[in-house]
C-alpha cells in the first residue's frame, strides 16, 4: 500500500469516506422510492436554512462534541470506549441529583456544581470497566457495552422507584428549580439578535468549545497527554519508558467517562430540565462516529460534531416533512462509521493508486 501525503490522509480520506457513505445513502433513498435531491434539500433547509434551524443543529452538535471528545481521549490510549451512552445517562443522574438537592439561586452557581456532578458520575461509570481492563484484562469493549445496559436498568430503577415525584405517572424526575435554567442562545445578549426565536442550543455550547481546547492542550501540550498517546501507540515501549499502564488506562477512561457525562449538561440541564428515561438518545454512540470522522483531534471532532448535528436535525426534518422515516439518519450514521472506521484501508488503497510514484522513463 502506498503511503499517502499527510494532507490526503487528514482531509481527502475522510471526505471520500463521507462521499461513499453519501452515495450509498442516496441509493437507499432511491430504493425506497424517494428522491435523494429532495431529501438533501429538506435536510439543508431544515438544519442550516435559518437561525432557528442552526439553533437545533448547534444543540445536537454540543452533545456530540462531548461524546466525540470522550471517545477520542480513550482512543488515544488505544481504548475503545463504547460506553459513552451509559456514561452520559449516569452523568444525567449526577446533574439531576445536584440540581434537585438545593434551591439554586442562579445558573452561574448551578452550572459548575452540575458539571462536577455530571463528570463525577460519568467517570464513576467508566471507572469499573477501566479497572477491569487494567487489572483483570477484561476486554473494555465488551464491559462498556454491558455497562450501557446495566446503566440503563439502573436509571429506570432510579426514575421509577426513587426519583419520581409522588402522583406522577411517567418515569422522570421533578422539574429542576428555576435557578438552574441555563440561558439559551436566544437569551444571550448580542446573540439574541441572531437567534430571535427560542432554540434549545444554550451556553453549554461554549463549555463544549472550551472542552475542545482543553483536551487539545491535555493531549499535545502536557506530560500526561504524551503518556496517554505513547501508551496508545505502543504499550511495550511505554512501559519501557516508565509509563505505568494501569495508571494511564484508569486516567484516560476517567477523563473519557467524565466528558461523556458532561454531555448531560446540554440535554438534561439545558433542554429537558428534568431527567428522563433514555436521556442520551444515542449521542454516546454517535460520539464513536464523530471521533472517527474527526480523526481523533479536537478540531476534527468539532467539525464532525457540527456535521452530525446537521445530519441529526436534518433527519428529524425529513421525518416531519417527507415520508422518509427519521431512521434514515441512523443508516447514514452507520454508513459513516463503516466507511471512515472499518473500510478506511479500502479508501486508502483506492487513493494510493493515484498517489503512486510514476516509474521513471514512462511518460
Amino acid at each position, binding site marked *: 500500500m502506498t503511503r499517502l501525503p499527510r494532507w490526503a490522509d487528514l482531509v481527502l480520506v475522510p471526505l471520500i469516506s463521507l462521499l461513499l457513505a453519501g452515495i450509498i445513502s442516496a441509493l437507499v433513498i432511491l430504493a425506497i422510492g424517494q428522491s435523494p435531491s429532495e431529501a438533501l434539500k429538506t435536510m439543508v433547509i431544515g438544519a442550516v436554512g435559518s437561525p432557528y434551524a442552526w439553533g437545533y443543529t448547534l444543540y445536537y452538535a454540543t452533545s456530540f462534541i462531548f461524546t466525540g471528545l470522550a471517545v477520542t481521549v480513550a482512543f488515544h490510549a488505544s481504548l475503545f470506549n463504547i460506553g459513552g451512552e451509559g456514561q452520559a445517562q449516569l452523568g444525567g443522574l449526577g446533574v439531576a441529583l445536584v440540581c434537585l438537592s438545593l434551591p439554586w439561586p442562579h445558573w452561574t452557581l448551578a452550572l459548575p456544581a452540575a458539571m462536577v456532578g455530571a463528570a463525577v458520575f460519568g467517570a464513576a461509570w467508566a471507572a469499573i470497566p477501566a479497572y477491569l481492563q487494567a487489572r483483570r484484562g477484561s476486554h473494555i469493549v465488551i464491559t462498556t457495552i*454491558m*455497562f450501557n445496559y446495566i446503566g440503563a436498568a439502573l436509571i429506570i430503577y432510579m426514575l421509577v*422507584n426513587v426519583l419520581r415525584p409522588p402522583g406522577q405517572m411517567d418515569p422522570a424526575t421533578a422539574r429542576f428549580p428555576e435557578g438552574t435554567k441555563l440561558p439559551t442562545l436566544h437569551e444571550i445578549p448580542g446573540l439574541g439578535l441572531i437567534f430571535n426565536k427560542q432554540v434549545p442550543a444554550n451556553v453549554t455550547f461554549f463549555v463544549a468549545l472550551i472542552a475542545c481546547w482543553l483536551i487539545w492542550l491535555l493531549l499535545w501540550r502536557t506530560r500526561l497527554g504524551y503518556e496517554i498517546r505513547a501508551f496508545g501507540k505502543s504499550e511495550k515501549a511505554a512501559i519501557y519508558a516508565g509509563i505505568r499502564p494501569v495508571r494511564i488506562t484508569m486516567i484516560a477512561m476517567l477523563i473519557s467517562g467524565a466528558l461523556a457525562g458532561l454531555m448531560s449538561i446540554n440535554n438534561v440541564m439545558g433542554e429537558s430540565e428534568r431527567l428522563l428515561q433514555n436521556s442520551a438518545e444515542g449521542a454516546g454512540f454517535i460520539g464513536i462516529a464523530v471521533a472517527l470522522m474527526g480523526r481523533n483531534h479536537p478540531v476534527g471532532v468539532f467539525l464532525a460534531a457540527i456535521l452530525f448535528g446537521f445530519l441529526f436535525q436534518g433527519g428529524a426534518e425529513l421525518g416531519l416533512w417527507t415520508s422518509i422515516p427519521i431512521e434514515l439518519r441512523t443508516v447514514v450514521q452507520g454508513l459513516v462509521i463503516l466507511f471512515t472506521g472499518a473500510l478506511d484501508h479500502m479508501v486508502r488503497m483506492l487513493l494510493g493508486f493515484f498517489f503512486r510514484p510514476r516509474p521513471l522513463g514512462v511518460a
Partner: protein
Amino acid sequence: MDYATLLQILDSTMRLATPLLLACLAGLFSERSGIFDIGLEGKMLMAAMCTGAVAAMTGQVWLGVLAGIFGSMLFAGVHGFASITFRGNQLISGVALNFVASGITVLIAQSLFRQGGRTPPLSGDARFNPIALPFADSLSNVPLIGPFYSEVLSGHTALVYIGLLCVPLTWWVLYRSRFGLRLRAVGENPASVDTAGISVVRLRYTAVMITGILCGLAGAYMAAGLQAGFGKEMTAGRGYIALAALIFAKWRPWYALMATLLFGFFQALALRPDVIAKTLHFSIPVPALDALPYILTVIVLAGFVGRAIPPRAGGEPYVKER
C-alpha cells in the same frame, strides 16, 4: 413456587433462550475463526425484518426464513469484506453494521407496508406452528416427568428444535471434523494455518458466512416464532446478551447451551415478577433482573469464575508474511 408455575417458566425459558442460543452459536463460529463480531444484533434484526416481510407477502414461513438468512448473510458478507479483505477494525465494523441494521430495517418495512415501520401481523402458515413431540399427550399423566415432557419439551416451533440440534452439530464440527480443527487453528494462530497451505481468508469467510446463517435463523425465530411479525428494534439487545453468553460459555458449544438457557431463564423470570415475590418473600426490581445477564458477564469477564480466554488471534486482521 408450585410445579405448574415452574413448568410455565421453564417453557418460556425454552422459547426465550432459542434466539440467544442460535446467535450465541453464530458468534462462536466467527470468534473461533478470529473475527470478533459485535454485529450479531444487527444481523438478527435484519433477518427478522426480511423474514417478517417475505412471510407476510407470500404467506410461507419457510420462504421468510430463507429471506432472513439471505439478509443476515448480506450483512455478514460486508463484515467479512471490511474485516478480512480490507483488514479493518472488526469492532468498529460491527458497531457500524448494528447502526445500519437498526435504521434500514425500519426504512424498508415502512416503504413496503406503510405501517409505521412494522410488518403486518403474521398468522397461519406465515408463522411457525407448535410441533407436538411423539407421545406428548399420552405421557402427560405420568407424574413429574410427564408434564415436564409435554409442557416444557414438547409443543415448541421447529426452530427451537433446530437450535437444540445445532449444539451437538457445532460440537461435532468444531472438535471432530477437519474443518473444525482448521477453524480453531485459524483463531489461535493463523500463520500456522497459512504455512500448512490452507487459505486463512477462505476459512474466515466460511466462518463468517456460517455466522450469517445462524443469525438468520435467530432473527427468523424472533419474527415468526416468538412474535408474529417484525417490529422496530425487536431484538432488544439480544445480540449483546448472546455475546455475553458466548463469553460466559468460554467459546464452547455445550456451555453455550447452558449459558443461553440460564439467561433465557432470567428473561422468563423478569416477565413474572409476581412469582419471584412469592418465592423469595421479597421483590427484586424488574430492572435488576433485566440487568442480571450483563452483570454476570462482567463478573465472568473479571475472571472471578475462572478465566474466560478468547481465541488468541481474535480481533487481529491477518497479514500474510512477505
